């Protein structure tokens, strides 16, 4: 039954691998069934305040935004691959576009890996609203959260 796992992993890889900026920030994705957790793998170059030191607020925003976009793309893709049409698309599926994104900085990002999960609160034909939470050591102690609106890719 590992065939199913391979197919799902391949689908996720197709979604993520094509985006240079995700590689640049070294964001990776852990998948358990349909649940995704994104990982911001720490590197010295993502530091924004060297005296603390702390992760750059812009990187935190980018990490949360990427998590939201991939979650939306993944949900669409999941329905495709699990809903009968089992073939993994060879080309990169079109990703949603960000309309607006509001980041709430709760504490400074410490110089180590960070994790995030997104929850799609509403996903219509044209617009989607997504909430994202990010943490480091403790799942219940968030260091940032965000809400954003996205324009879904049209079928045509």
């Amino acid at each position, binding site marked *: 039954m590992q065939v199913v796992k391979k197919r799902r992993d391949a689908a996720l890889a197709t979604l993520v691998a*094509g*985006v*240079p*900026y995700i*590689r*640049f*920030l070294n964001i990776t994705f852990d998948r358990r069934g349909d649940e995704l957790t994104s990982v911001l793998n720490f590197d*010295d*170059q*993502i*530091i*924004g*305040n*060297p*005296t603390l030191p*702390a992760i*750059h*607020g*812009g*990187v935190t*925003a*980018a*990490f949360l*935004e*990427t998590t939201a976009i991939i979650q939306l793309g993944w949900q669409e893709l999941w329905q495709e691959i699990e809903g009968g049409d089992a073939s993994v698309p060879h080309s*990169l599926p*079109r*990703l949603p*576009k*960000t*309309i*607006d*994104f*509001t*980041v*709430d*900085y709760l504490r*400074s990002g410490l110089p180590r890996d960070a994790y995030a999960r997104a929850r799609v609160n509403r996903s219509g034909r044209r617009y989607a609203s997504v909430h994202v939470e990010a943490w480091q050591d403790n799942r219940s102690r968030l260091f940032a959260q965000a809400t954003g609106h996205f324009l879904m890719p049209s079928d045509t």
Partner: protein
Amino acid sequence: MSDDLRAQVARQFIESIPHARALGMSFVEIGAGTAELSMPYDKRLIGDPATGVVHGGAISTLMDTCSGAAVMAHPVNPGSTATLDLRIDYMRAATPGQTLVARAECYHVTRTVAFVRAVAMDDNRDNPVATATGAFTVEIAGADV
């Protein structure tokens, strides 16, 4: 603060931020509570491989850095600052190949909070790529809080 000193502080500000260096940011201008920062087009920052458009996250980072710089450049002279909240509106895709420029204005400061608005543009200055508004912490240098 004299213009020379301000320019020097601005340069040091960027050079001290590893991620701003990684994105190749440099100051265009720095004034009393205002800052203008540029970021060259870089293939590593592409968010949409089909078109070569830069990822929104890189633009957020440019505007966040520029906003922080505007706070630091405010005449109240904060010792340091951190982002409390940032809202970004993406109006259109940045034109691939063009340098992005962000302009931020710290338009109000209290003893504890700085309010900032910022805009990001490519070569077409009349039609912004994105705008941002944010609240930043203010830590006055040497103040007994």
